[in-house]
């Protein structure tokens, strides 16, 4: 995923330097406040470790080997901010000394592999490893899955950076067609190509190495895991039982964000497969000669809905109707979900009360 110089336009490179810079500065400040004068040796050795992890060949079943990146591994071991610095320094040595990854695109490479990958991967890991003991198997697996998600997020970022190039930077040939100046693949081609390779091979390699290293440290050297997990109990027996509390706040925030995005639906035109008006079905596209009888019959079979076609009446106030439909739908789903949740909770409560009564 090390992008060489020449694939991205200088304008993109400048933007990516700008995107990575605040992370570098925050990372340097945060790491320094925690480790103080240990800053230089800790990060120096961390970066050297990071570099060497990228060199390890991990065997894959086809008889060949592949490399891991180790960004999420370092984030789990030293914390995501230290990982930002360590991976950046490792990438700098690779770019300057070994010519692996470009110099102008260094900002983009760092944004993908030193910012997106550790943070997305570490976030996933934290989410999956919550309320788990330090030596639990689930924690090692969570680190692996975090690495898998992290490297794919980084690959997606790289694919988007590639895919934007032919849309934005081209010159016009004598025939009037566009000649891409940098990476020639469009988003529809670059995203499947990058994600395909990373979902199938590189992500699995990353998962295997990260989970393997954490599992090894759980067996052989737990104090090293303590560096970034000072307060996590070591064995399952020491865990304090936690009542699962629904994170209502986060849930509502997410819902609000999705509600704010509702107008996106208004931009889309037409219907999928002629769902509302069979007459609009593009017959030739599907090799048909007439609208199928079932579709014709059942498309207006039920017309007694409250908000037909996500609107009050056909076309009276399209945007207000659309918003109202979204709101009503959300509230209905919330009500059903909440009701189910309460019902299940009540049943479970009754069971736990009944068991000691039988004894």
């Amino acid at each position, binding site marked *: 995923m090390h992008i060489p110089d020449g694939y991205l336009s200088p304008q993109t*490179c400048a933007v990516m330097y700008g995107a990575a810079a605040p992370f570098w500065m925050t990372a340097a400040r945060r790491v320094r406040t925690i480790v103080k004068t240990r800053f230089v040796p800790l990060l120096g050795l961390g970066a050297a470790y990071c570099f060497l992890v990228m060199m390890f060949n991990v065997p894959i079943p086809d008889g060949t080997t592949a490399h891991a990146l180790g960004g999420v591994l370092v984030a789990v071991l030293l914390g995501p901010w230290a990982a930002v610095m360590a991976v950046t320094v490792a990438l700098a040595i690779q770019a300057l000394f070994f010519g692996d990854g470009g110099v*102008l695109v260094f900002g983009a490479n760092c944004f993908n592999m030193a910012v997106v990958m550790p943070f997305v991967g570490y976030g996933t890991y934290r989410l999956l490893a919550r309320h788990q003991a330090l030596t639990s198997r689930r924690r090692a697996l969570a680190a692996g899955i975090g690495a898998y998600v992290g490297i794919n997020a980084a690959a997606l970022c790289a694919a988007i950076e590639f895919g934007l190039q032919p849309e934005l930077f081209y010159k016009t040939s004598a025939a009037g067609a566009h000649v891409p100046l940098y990476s020639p693949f469009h988003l529809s081609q670059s995203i499947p190509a990058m994600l395909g390779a990373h979902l199938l091979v590189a992500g699995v390699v990353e998962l295997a190495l990260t989970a393997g290293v954490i599992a090894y440290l759980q067996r052989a050297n737990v104090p090293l895991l303590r560096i970034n997990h000072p307060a996590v109990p070591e064995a399952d027996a020491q865990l304090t039982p936690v009542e699962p509390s629904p994170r209502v706040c986060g849930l509502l925030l997410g819902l609000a964000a999705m509600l704010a995005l509702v107008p996106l639906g208004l931009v889309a035109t037409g219907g999928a497969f002629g769902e509302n008006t069979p007459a609009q079905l593009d017959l030739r596209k599907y090799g048909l000669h007439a609208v199928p009888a079932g579709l014709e019959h059942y498309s207006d079979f039920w017309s007694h809905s409250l908000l037909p076609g996500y609107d009050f009446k056909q076309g009276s106030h399209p945007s207000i109707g659309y918003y109202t439909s979204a709101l009503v739908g959300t509230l209905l789903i919330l009500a059903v979900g909440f009701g189910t949740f309460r019902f299940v909770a009540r049943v479970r409560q009754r069971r736990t009360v009944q068991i000691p009564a039988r004894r």
Partner: protein
Amino acid sequence: MTADHVTAAAGADTAIPHLAPDWLVRTEVGLCPCGCIGRRRKGTAVAKTLQGGADLVRHAVFSDDAASRAGLLQRIDARVKVVSLLGLLVVAAFVRTLPVLAGMYVAAVLVAMASGLSVRFFLARVWLFVPVFTGIVVLPATLNLVTPGRIVVPLGTWFGGQVGLTSEGLESAGLIVMRVALSISLVVLLTATTPWSRILAALRSLFLPATVVLVLSMAYRYLFHLLTSVTDMYTARRARTVGADSEVRSSRRFVAASAGALFGKSHALSEEVYLAMVARGYRGDARLMQPARLRITDVLWCVACLAVALLVVWSDGVVG
């Protein structure tokens, strides 16, 4: 130009006596620690990691050799080199025509020859990489499926539509291959003729904070120290293995375990290094060597680079 410069330039494409032994600086190019460049060979993970480690050391020795040779670029101050080659890199990124990029590449090869770099090394470094990575990536882009335009090489029909190479696609592919080759060459020109410590000092005096430079130099220094640990672990594993070590699961376990053990070692080492630094009076502030003053050759080189940049921008406007 002094007499030894002339011999260095003249003998650039023939064998140059290396300071390092020959087996260490074989012409095979081992570039990539991440696997995206270079050839994929079958072989066990242990053998390949050992090979990778050897490549790393060879690369370091080789560039030290090249940087200590007498030549044009070796005489230029590192700060000037960093700024000028970075500037040319930016100019190269903005060029929109193929002939101008090719001209810049020829100029880069000439400068490499004048700096006593082996032409074979210089070309191999770029053109072993370009076909493997860029060539394969860019080849599909010449089809009209990716880059629509006037079809110059028809290849037949597919799903009722005509398929072929378009002139726009070919030009675009040429642009990207040439630009990648030129960019790599410019970076190689800097890194192969400048010792790592000088590059760091230059970066320090230009824009990087002193602590970051200290972290970079320490990472580079201990990289080789930790590499010895890796090589030891892998050599020991190889010595214990009878026959082909083809079991994927056990060798993957070994790779994970060795990476875990390496983390333990590197963390312990960082603690020891820190204590040693404190014992020598380290209090958290970084001090580095003061860079030397600029000389007349540096100024001349700057003027030459500026002239090339202006020429490139002008000719790009004329050709395009």
